[in-house]
């Protein structure tokens, strides 16, 4: 009979004990990083003092004094504060990122499906598109669209006579079209539109409940499209078209009025969408190909028709593979929108981390705010996509 003390291993020496070693390692790492951070903060403070820079966010209230070519949603003038500049940049960034993500998703899906098409020509064209745009730097594409395609377009003076009413025009000042102005009564069209959305939502709930109970399907998608798009149109016609399109007017030198989409935005959006769509197409292709062939064969064996096979069997399973990399493409697009600074589209980076920083020299505060915005946008996007992903993920029992 061995007694207990012979069975337990002797306690390892201090340096051989993984737990104690882990503590030592971590203390060392924390000390090194703490020292680094301390040095950085101290150096920055000394350097800023010697350069005569005041720290703090006081500069945000002072007047900016420069003009910005496009300020949607925010009222901005040269006497507005730097904080307004920040808001303008933020709005511009969000607009280009949101529109870009949506369009890149649509284009990417189309090309990804074309890449798997049984049609040889279409498949080769999709492959060509992907290989071409994926392997050329984005900045080059932005510069190409901006200075090689959009800038050499004819100017408004070459296209229109003075005094012309212009409803739609593409020239080197951007895309210009007539401004829609709602007349009294137009708000009813909005009511009908939102009503239709609510109704469609209720309809889909009811249809799901009915299918669970009886097995009968209801064409919710077609009905929803019909409700949301056709009902407002009917209301619009019924109310006697309460919307006026006010055209832009050609003065002696430029077009006045109308809605202008500046060429910087168009170039940036085109480049971002075309570039990102190439990546999304590959993700979609990989996702669809990742669905086991047995699934498709089983669906065919059960007599599910091809369109339903795609929609009910392949796509839901492919989405699980597609969504995580899709998230990082959306994030990439958002971050890449900061390349706007190369063509002076007034996004956050260009007007705030660029112009404002140059004028005020408040590097630390401005970079901190800018980085905080990008990090927040990243977190929000990945948060939303994670939520979506968990909703469609395989529920394992």
């Amino acid at each position, binding site marked *: 009979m061995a007694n207990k003390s012979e069975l337990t291993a002797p306690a390892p020496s201090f340096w051989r004990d993984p737990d104690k070693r882990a503590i030592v390692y971590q203390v060392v790492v924390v000390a090194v990083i703490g020292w680094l951070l301390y040095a950085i903060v101290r*150096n920055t403070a000394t350097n800023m003092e010697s350069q005569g820079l005041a720290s703090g966010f006081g500069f945000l209230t002072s007047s900016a004094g420069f003009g910005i070519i496009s300020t949607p949603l925010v009222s901005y003038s040269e006497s507005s504060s730097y904080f307004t500049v920040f808001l303008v940049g933020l709005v511009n960034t969000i607009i280009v990122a949101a529109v870009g993500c949506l369009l890149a998703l649509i284009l990417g899906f189309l090309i990804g499906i074309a890449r798997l098409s049984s049609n040889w020509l279409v498949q080769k064209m999709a492959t060509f598109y992907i290989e071409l745009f994926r392997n*050329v730097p984005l900045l080059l594409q932005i510069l190409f669209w901006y200075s090689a395609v959009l800038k050499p377009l004819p100017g408004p003076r070459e296209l229109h006579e003075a005094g012309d009413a212009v409803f739609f025009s593409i020239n080197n000042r951007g895309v210009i079209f007539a401004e829609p102005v709602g007349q009294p009564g137009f708000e009813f069209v909005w009511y009908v539109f939102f009503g239709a959305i609510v109704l469609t939502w209720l309809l889909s709930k009811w249809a799901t409940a009915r299918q669970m109970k009886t097995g009968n399907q209801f064409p919710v998608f077609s009905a929803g499209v019909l409700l949301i798009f056709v009902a407002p149109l009917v209301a619009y016609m019924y109310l006697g078209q309460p919307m006026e399109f006010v055209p832009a007017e050609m003065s002696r030198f430029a077009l006045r009025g109308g809605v202008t989409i500046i060429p910087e935005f168009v170039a940036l959006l085109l480049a971002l969408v075309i570039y990102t769509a190439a990546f999304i197409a590959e993700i979609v292709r990989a996702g669809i190909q990742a669905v086991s062939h047995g699934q498709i064969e089983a669906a065919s064996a059960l007599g599910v028709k091809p369109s339903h096979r795609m929609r009910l069997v392949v796509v839901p399973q492919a989405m699980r593979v597609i969504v995580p990399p899709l998230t990082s493409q959306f994030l990439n697009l958002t971050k890449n929108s900061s390349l706007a600074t190369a063509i002076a589209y007034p996004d956050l980076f260009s007007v705030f981390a660029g112009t404002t920083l140059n004028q005020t020299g408040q590097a630390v505060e401005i*970079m901190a705010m800018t980085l905080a915005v990008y990090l927040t946008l990243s977190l929000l996007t990945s948060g939303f996509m994670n939520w979506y992903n968990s909703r469609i993920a395989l529920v394992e029992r």
Partner: protein
Amino acid sequence: MTTITKLPNGGKVYAGDLPDKPAPIRTDGLVAWMRDNLFNGVFNSILSLSALALVLYVLPPVLGWLIFNANWVGGADACRVNPDGACWPFVSARWEQFLYGFYEKSERWRIDILLWMLAIGIVLMVWEKTPGRHLIAMFMLFVYPVLAFFMMYGIVAVNVYWIAVPLLLLGVLFATLAGGFFRVIGFLLMLGGVAMLWQVGSGAVQAIHPLGDRALPIVDTPQWGGFTLTLVIALSGIVASLPLGVLLALGRRSKMPIISLLSTVFIEFWRGIPLVAVLFMATIMFPLFLPAGVTFDQLLRAVIGVALFASAYMAEVVRGGLQAINKGQYEGAMALGLPYSKMMRLVVLPQALKVVIPGIVNTFIGLFKDTTLVLIIALFDLLGIVQASIADPNWSIQSVPYTGYAFVGISFWICCYSMARYSRYIEGKLHTGHKR
């Protein structure tokens, strides 16, 4: 002749040869191929025809502009005469600048040697039957960058920092990742680095003169440019980010909570911000972070920024590889009594890194394309130098900007596409599952 006899029960009896059936529809040849692949159904036929129309609409003008109508010989005047084609004389006239930037003309042989070494090194690494491939890879990863730096920058008098800091980093790398003899060397290197820094700190030594009179003259970094600069940034980014990325990935998966937290925060921070912001920080903030009087080269700052940025992405790629390794491998290594460093170095990392070679190559392709962003902080990489050249009044011809962009586009495309093919080839080789 066939005779058919009808039986009373309604059946038929055939005697003699039956009449020939029509030939089956052809299943080979061009027509059959087109029927199967282009015109199998109304929808596909319409699709094919519209796709064909698109090709015929786009391709002839593009090819005509690039090749058939292009100006191949002559100078700016030839391009002025024929504005409807690319102006390739612009590229041939500026060829050297696009490749070397503003690098001293008499010293360009140094770059030539380095480029040839790089090309041969890559070919030897990619070709699988090369004897001693691992040694060559080690050479390209650890020795070549140092060599390339000194050859490009020149050696007259070397600031001790330039030796001490790489020594220190190399030492840390060896001491943590290698074992046995190399580990001892790692500690010695670290010791040497610290000693040198100590010397600098006490003001005893500032510079040493290794080559004496036969020194390579200094070519300062503002003169670096063109494709060389693109390669410098991309390659130093990848070389620095690989070990850093591995360390960060190991850190993120570590069981030590603080190390894992710090690695995660570091990775997510760099992945959450755009590269433009990193470059801006490198130019504007970095000088603020350093003690007064210490200045860093603009290019070096950009490279540090790019390397940190790339290492976060590399860490995620490596982490994917680490997660793909069967848990049994870890457990097996632990059961054999291997300590952590040996478990990783001998068992896990060799497998994990092999799995993620495609991912690493893809990260490198992204990094390579992203080097163009240094244009924004006024460094002249290939795109930057072309962008500057097309503003030359001697070449203010309408077709020149297009030609410049086309040249940059084609150059990058060739590099990136061949890397992508390589990555796909490796992927195919590693893919041992069932294929359809």
